[in-house]
């Protein structure tokens, strides 16, 4: 036995590293997963270098005299590491109309992360800055910005090209974008500019005329102008509400006591707007004032390389503005790069793919021209168009394209698409209402693309339609149509739109853009009308094959001021629509990397699965082969078994037991003694804390193949309640995967004795029926070792008796049975051997005859215990006599017949009331049970 236990220890020790290895493998897997996740996270969130933001109010001397102080609220973002020894280039960052330095904080942090010092400031007239709004007037806003350049040049951390000339780029959108252009035109110290979604000619932007008419002839963009003017004069409810400083009580507009009609607008701007808004027509003075605020006239002075970014969903500053800027700047030989994106004043910042592209372009532009990094960026043209809908972003999905050079709005090629439709009368609604809707200013997001808001009113528009397109058409640029119109008044204001109509008739107006036309000197009859060429707003859109193009000419549009007098015009579109196209290379989809990631993931998963399966198979094969030779024929050997549950509960403290062939071994103990836990361990359901289980010499691990020679009933039956008893048995046997013939189903069903009930659902069974079915299931295949936990639980006395016979018979022929029970009588009558457990430990073990059978002692109840003890002590052969309470004795007769002892007592006149044979186990067991009265009752 000593040799045995040392081998156990050795084996345990040998098995320990394996456990560790397995843990190590899983720990390694977890670590690898975590590392992978961490890597992805690190890539997703590149650590931005630190920076410090200095908020300060800079008072600069500006204005026409160059000496009027104005306080500008500013923030300087200085990257960590910038110093006089290591100066960095700077970026002047302007904000949009109605915004403040805070509205560009995100952009500033991104730029400072790229190593630039960023100076963001609130333009005069906005937010916490002083002064009035002069709309980027050269003597006001532009001069302010020049003073900021002076200020930057004086900072030691800012790199300078020469004293007083900082290395600086100007970046900004809309209002800030125009400032970038104007500042570059007025100050040669600017080294690069990135104007976004901004204007070329403010007069033309607000008074567009699609036949090429001057702003005096233009149609007033009422909705946008009103929105802007209202934003600044309208008080806290306006958009400036996003900027707490702009709507606070300390607002300089309020304190300046200015005219409430003009708010913080300068008087000349305000007056020009008021005249414009009343008449809907611009006077030369107003046009001149707007032109002062426009880059148009000064572009020939721009020497700073310009990256022009403009949006296709922008009814305020359409793509034609950037086109004019590009041509104007390129004429000086200054490098210009143009990029279009799906977004703008109507469409917002655009989808992530566009934002990424613009971020990359900006970084490249500033990187070369400010930081001196990289090759000179090409002056290629890139654009994108809506290619679908992204559910995850809740907005349009786009495809990007690039072409070698910027072709302008006329495209590199043109397609003519014939239109048909007779001249049609259209009515101008009195007072301009109701009006068609093409765009809702600043509606943002999806509105401009999904066409949900575009309406044309019956009677107010004429349609000219093409045949379905034989092949798809990539429109990139400004389409043109010819228009003839007749008007009884000689004048007409018309809106020309190009729809993409799908076969189902759903029409889409790209970007919600409209060409506005004011014609004068018209004849009364359309036959006499001269055709005029209308240049429609530039778009980037693919019209799929099978769609038709539709040119609609309408008399009203909510966004524009139209003549109030009612009139009926006649319009005709005499020729085809000329559509510019550009052949471009699709930009590599930045998301395409994810496809490789997916492919890699799939490969990794497949490989991981294959490895896991191979490792598991190898391990299983190795685990099943080691056999302890001396126990190869012993059904069950358990040594040193110990089971602790988490939390310190010790269910089995130490248990050794052996079940040999042909034995029916009873595991006897009160409830809670650890019987069931022990059985669970030797079925591989729970892992022992220590010790070893050998079944036919095979070391037991969970799921060890040798368990197929063990049939079990543990802790009550477990059946699928919705299936019949028979289906449960056959189903269970199928689960073992063994041949059907080996099941011995008929014999087993016979043992269960369920009769016809075997075909009923188990749900309907009584407790006893389930118990019998469970015993039958354990016997399926007549396993070599049968393990039954409280098998008679719930059975009737006759069934119990039958069960005893079955079990005794079962063990003949070399099979073995291990039965647990808390009933002494049951074990005594059923088993050949018994193992008594108490509190998780074996207290007695051996053949039932030895352990349970009659002992040489008897229990006597006598009339006089003292005399009786004396008599019996003297009786030859009696080994011992001891008192067992008043009038009771326990006598070890050691072979002396009880009759002899009784006769001796009676002979001396001691009355014998009772003679009870003693059984060895009973005392011990009753004592144990007595310790746990609650745990010992019959169930």
């Amino acid at each position, binding site marked *: 036995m000593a040799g045995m236990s040392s081998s156990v220890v050795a084996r345990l020790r040998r098995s320990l590293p394996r456990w560790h290895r397995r843990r190590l493998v899983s720990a390694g897997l977890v670590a690898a997963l975590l590392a992978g996740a961490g890597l992805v996270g690190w890539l997703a969130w590149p650590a931005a270098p630190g920076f410090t933001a200095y908020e300060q109010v800079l008072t600069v001397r500006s204005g026409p005299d160059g000496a009027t102080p104005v306080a500008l609220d500013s923030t300087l973002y200085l990257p960590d590491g910038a110093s006089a020894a290591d100066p960095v280039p700077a970026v002047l960052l302007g904000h949009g109309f109605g915004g403040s330095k805070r509205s560009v904080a995100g952009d500033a942090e991104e730029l400072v992360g790229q190593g630039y010092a960023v100076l963001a400031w609130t333009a005069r007239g906005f937010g916490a800055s002083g002064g009035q709004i002069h709309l980027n007037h050269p003597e006001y806003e532009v001069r302010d910005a020049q003073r900021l350049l002076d200020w930057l040049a004086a900072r030691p951390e800012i790199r300078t090209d020469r004293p007083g000339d900082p290395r600086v780029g100007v970046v900004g959108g809309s209002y800030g974008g125009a400032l970038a252009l104007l500042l570059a035109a007025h100050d040669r110290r600017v080294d690069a500019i990135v104007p976004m979604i901004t204007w070329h000619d403010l007069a033309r932007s607000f008074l567009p005329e699609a036949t090429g008419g001057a702003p005096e002839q233009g149609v007033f963009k009422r909705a946008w102008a009103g929105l802007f003017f209202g934003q600044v004069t309208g008080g806290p409810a306006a958009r400036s509400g996003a900027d707490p400083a702009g709507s606070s009580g300390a607002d300089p507009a309020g304190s300046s006591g200015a005219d409430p009609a003009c708010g913080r607008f300068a008087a000349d701007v305000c007056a020009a707007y008021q005249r414009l808004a009343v008449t809907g027509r611009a006077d030369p003075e107003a046009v001149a004032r707007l032109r002062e605020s426009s880059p148009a006239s000064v572009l020939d002075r721009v020497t700073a390389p310009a990256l022009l970014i403009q949006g296709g969903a922008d009814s305020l500053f359409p793509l034609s503005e950037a086109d004019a800027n590009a041509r104007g700047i390129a004429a000086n030989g200054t490098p210009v790069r143009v990029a279009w994106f799906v977004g703008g004043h109507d469409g917002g910042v655009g989808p992530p793919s566009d934002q990424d592209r613009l971020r990359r372009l900006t970084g490249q532009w500033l990187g070369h021209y400010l930081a001196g990094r990289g090759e000179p960026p090409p002056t290629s043209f890139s654009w994108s168009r809506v290619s679908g*809908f992204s559910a995850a972003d809740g907005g349009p999905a786009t495809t990007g394209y690039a072409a070698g050079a910027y072709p302008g709005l006329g495209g590199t090629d043109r397609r003519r698409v014939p239109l048909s439709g007779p001249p049609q009368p259209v009515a101008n609604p009195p007072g301009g209402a109701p009006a068609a809707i093409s765009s809702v200013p600043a509606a943002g997001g999806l509105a401009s693309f999904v066409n949900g808001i575009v309406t044309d009113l019956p009677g107010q528009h004429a349609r000219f339609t093409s045949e379905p397109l034989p092949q798809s058409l990539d429109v990139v640029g400004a389409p043109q149509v010819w228009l003839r119109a007749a008007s009884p008044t000689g004048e007409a204001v018309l809106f020309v739109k190009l729809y993409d109509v*799908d076969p189902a008739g759903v029409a889409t107006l790209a970007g919600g853009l409209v060409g506005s036309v004011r014609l004068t000197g018209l004849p009364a009859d359309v036959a006499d009308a001269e055709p005029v060429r209308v240049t429609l707003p530039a778009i980037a859109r693919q019209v799929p094959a099978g769609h038709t193009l539709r040119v609609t000419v309408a008399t009203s549009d909510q966004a524009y001021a139209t003549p109030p007098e009612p009139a009926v015009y006649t319009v005709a579109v005499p020729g085809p629509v000329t559509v510019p196209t550009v052949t471009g290379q699709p930009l590599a989809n930045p998301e395409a990397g994810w496809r490789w*990631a997916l492919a890699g*993931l799939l490969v990794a998963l497949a490989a991981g699965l294959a490895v896991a399966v191979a490792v598991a198979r190898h391990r299983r094969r190795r685990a099943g082969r080691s056999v302890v*030779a001396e126990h190869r024929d012993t059904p069950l050997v358990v040594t040193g078994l110990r089971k602790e549950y988490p939390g310190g509960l010790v269910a089995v403290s130490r248990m050794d037991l052996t079940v040999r062939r042909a034995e029916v071994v009873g595991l006897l103990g009160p409830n809670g003694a650890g019987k069931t836990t022990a059985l669970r361990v030797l079925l591989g*359901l729970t892992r022992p804390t220590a010790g070893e289980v050998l079944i036919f010499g095979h070391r037991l691990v969970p799921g060890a*193949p*040798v368990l197929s020679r063990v049939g079990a009933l543990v802790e009550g039956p477990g059946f699928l309640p919705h299936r019949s008893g028979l289906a449960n048995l056959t189903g269970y046997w199928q689960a073992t*995967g063994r041949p059907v013939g080996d099941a011995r189903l008929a014999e087993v069903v016979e043992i269960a004795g369920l009769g016809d009930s075997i075909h009923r659902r188990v749900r309907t069974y009584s407790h006893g029926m389930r118990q019998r079915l469970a015993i039958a299931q354990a016997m399926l295949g007549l396993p070599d070792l049968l393990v039954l936990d409280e098998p008679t639980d719930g059975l009737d006395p006759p069934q119990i008796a039958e069960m005893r016979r079955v079990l005794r018979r079962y063990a003949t022929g070399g099979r073995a049975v291990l039965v647990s029970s808390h009933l002494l009588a049951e074990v005594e009558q059923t088993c050949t051997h018994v193992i008594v457990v108490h509190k998780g430990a074996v207290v007695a073990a051996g053949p039932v005859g030895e352990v349970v059978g009659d002992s040489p002692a008897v229990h006597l109840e006598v009339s006089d215990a003292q005399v009786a003890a004396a008599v019996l002590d003297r009786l030859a052969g009696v080994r011992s006599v001891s008192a067992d309470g008043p009038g009771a004795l326990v006598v070890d007769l050691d072979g002396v017949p009880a009759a002899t002892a009784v006769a001796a007592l009676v002979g001396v006149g001691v009355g014998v009331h009772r003679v009870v044979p003693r059984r060895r186990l009973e005392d011990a067991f009753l004592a144990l049970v007595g310790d746990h009265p609650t745990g010992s009752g019959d169930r």
Partner: protein
Amino acid sequence: MTTRVPAGGSVDGAAPGYHAGRTLPFRAEWRRQASRRRTQLVLGFMVALPLIILAAFQLGGDDEGQEPSGPAGGRISSLVDLATSGGLNFTLFTIFVSAGFLLVVVVALFFGDAVASEASWGSLRYLLAAPVPRSRLLTAKLVVAAGHSALAILLLAATALLAGTLRYGVHPLRGGIAADLPPGEGLVRIGLVLGYLAVGLLVVAGVAFLFSVLTDAPLGAVGGAVLLYILSSILDQITALGSLRSLLPTHYSDAWLGLLSTPMQVDDLVKGTISALCYATGCAALAWWRFLRRDIVS
């Protein structure tokens, strides 16, 4: 004393005819699960739902007086408007209304119930003592639950397609942002949508399966998985979370809408697939790791 015995009977001591790889055959497990009332009810409901929807459209009267607002009118409402314009659109509508919750519950039921129900019946310990190796048990449970889930989704789609086509006829698939899709192409798209939905539901499956292994209460496993799914959906609504949202398992659950546009938008699908596979694999690996080590106390 430890020796390798040469093949005398079986090397691993198993009973004749026992082979670990042949335990709990998929067919047997499929039959065990298919015979359950729960399975039959769910599958029956998958057939009944399209018919109920169809009946509801019939009862609700003709809405055809209203001009469909077109693909532009709103991606969601257009699906509803277009539901009666052909079998494919009806199928799409049925999928759309089921994808968000019904299919989640169904998949959670099949996977969450898989192991926990055996534990609650007490049959788990007998399977493991048979012995069915624990990995083998999980594999069989996983395959059969996946099979039943796939069958449920297919039954739903097939019934909707059949009933919708019989009632509304064969018409192009509409509802994308671009052109109508001819019936053949539309059928392919519907198939792809189903495929992506199935991939997305792997997350639910994985979580439910993990819970099924961790707990002995089937209801807890199913409910826990559904609750987590709802939690993730709610968090995904909070845009303030920014890019963190893309880590949520449900973030890409609507990406299948991209399959309806022309050309198909697959970028989100790819990311959604990666996300789903990662979560599902992680959950499954954890389930395995736990189940191979846990004490079976049910």
